[in-house]
């Protein structure tokens, strides 16, 4: 009456094989019939998607006053730099040029139509409350604390960086960001024909990794490497790199100069000069985490 061991094992393995084969049918079929794979999308599609995102932006920003960011608490030597940005809400008119520039600079992929209909875009910058909002590079970032592999880490210079190859896609960081600044690559953008490598300096991300604003890390890296190489031969140059002259893509693109990038710890930096005499604001839920990307409000 009962099944003997052999039959039991046979049944189990047959079930397993059958189920696996059936489950893989999507993959096999898609390789045959999917014509989108490998196609590179037209540039206009990116512009259209930004316009769609602008029309769907609903979220507001709840801002509170915060003090000016100070040097980061790090083990060992303190870095003389702490990079950040300030966004002038009065100057911004929500045109979205910063979003497009960021997408091109960082090879941000398009999303599928269903995701676009739900407002789930991959853009690193979103317009919230009439101003661009992106990762605030918090000094004591909640996302970095919970990343299991260490992919979300902090540089001594104040950048909250994302190492795509170390990401295992647990999405713990995404859950822990109070402002949902992080984006997850649900799809393999390349094989769906949704990504385009505008900028060779920035790698394309694979499926399953989180991404977010990097404060144009690649520009800062290149500048730092160039500076350190040249300072070995430059007679009498100071050994410290302050990142002077580096601009993020969004800052360059803004026609109203609403975004200013710079070094909070450098008196010569355009950032420090732009905020002198003004009160700095940050979103209420981020304020306890010491954000580096802050806001200026009209008249204050």
């Amino acid at each position: 009456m009962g099944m003997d061991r052999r039959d039991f094992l046979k049944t189990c393995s047959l079930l397993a094989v059958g189920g696996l084969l059936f489950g893989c049918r999507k993959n096999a079929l898609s390789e045959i019939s999917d014509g989108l794979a490998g196609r590179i999308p037209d540039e206009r599609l990116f512009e259209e998607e930004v316009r769609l995102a602008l029309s769907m932006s609903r979220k507001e920003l709840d801002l509170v006053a915060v003090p000016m960011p100070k040097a980061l608490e790090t083990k060992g030597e303190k870095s003389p730099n702490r990079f950040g940005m300030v966004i002038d809400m009065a100057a911004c008119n929500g045109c979205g040029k910063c979003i497009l520039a960021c997408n091109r600079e960082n090879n941000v992929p398009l999303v599928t139509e269903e995701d676009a209909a739900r407002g789930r875009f991959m853009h690193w910058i979103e317009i919230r409350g009439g101003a661009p909002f992106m990762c605030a590079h918090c000094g004591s970032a909640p996302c970095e604390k919970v990343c299991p592999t260490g992919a979300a880490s902090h540089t001594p210079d104040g950048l909250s960086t994302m190492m795509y190859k170390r990401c295992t896609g647990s999405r713990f960081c995404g859950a822990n960001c109070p402002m949902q600044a992080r984006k997850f690559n649900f799809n393999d953008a390349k094989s769906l024909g949704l990504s385009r490598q505008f900028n060779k300096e920035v790698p394309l991300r694979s499926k399953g990794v989180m991404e977010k604003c990097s404060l144009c890390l690649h520009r800062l890296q290149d500048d730092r490497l160039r500076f350190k190489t040249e300072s070995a031969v430059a007679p009498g140059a100071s050994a410290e790199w302050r990142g002077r002259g580096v601009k993020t893509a969004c800052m360059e693109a803004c026609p109203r100069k609403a975004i200013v990038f710079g070094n909070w710890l450098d008196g010569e930096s355009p950032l420090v000069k732009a905020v002198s005499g003004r009160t700095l604001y940050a979103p209420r839920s981020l304020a306890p985490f010491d954000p580096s990307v802050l806001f200026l409000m009209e008249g204050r």
Partner: protein
Amino acid sequence: MKIFIVIFSLMFAFLWADFLLGRGGEPPREGVSDFPGAPSLAIPFNHALHGDSLGLDCAACHTGSRSQAHAYFPTRKDCMDCHRLPLTENAGIEKLDSALEKAPEEPWSKASVLPAHVVFHHGVHAAAGVSCTDCHGGVKTSGAVRNYEVNTYGGEKFDMKTCLSCHRGETFKDRGYKRAATYCAACHR
């Protein structure tokens, strides 16, 4: 007795996985010049002659090696900078000159073994005082032939652990390098 079998099989399996998946499992790479066994190439090049004997710096031909991210290979024009003249009375020089005339504009190239997400800048290392032989001198440095002299390169057998060990000051202690950046974003993007 049995517990030894158990422990032994555990260690064996661990090392087996390491061998299969780790870099140690790859055959050593050979350089692109006339090292025995390497594929035949356009122009055989003798590093020992040009380097030690003539006293040319690496950057004279690998122009990026002290200033750029990549060190680059020289083009035919770079060779002709010196070889436009007959440089020695050596009988082989005529053969060399005729070969040079027929050579392609870019005689050497190779596929990079560095992953795309790694940023390695030759210039910043040279600026910090790292000499070319520290990485490219390779293993056989003890008086005997150095790797680049027989046209193989040590840099390709490096993995992240090698880089991190030097950045942390655990290796190359006698060279007195100062501690370099070890945060992820220093070298990755």
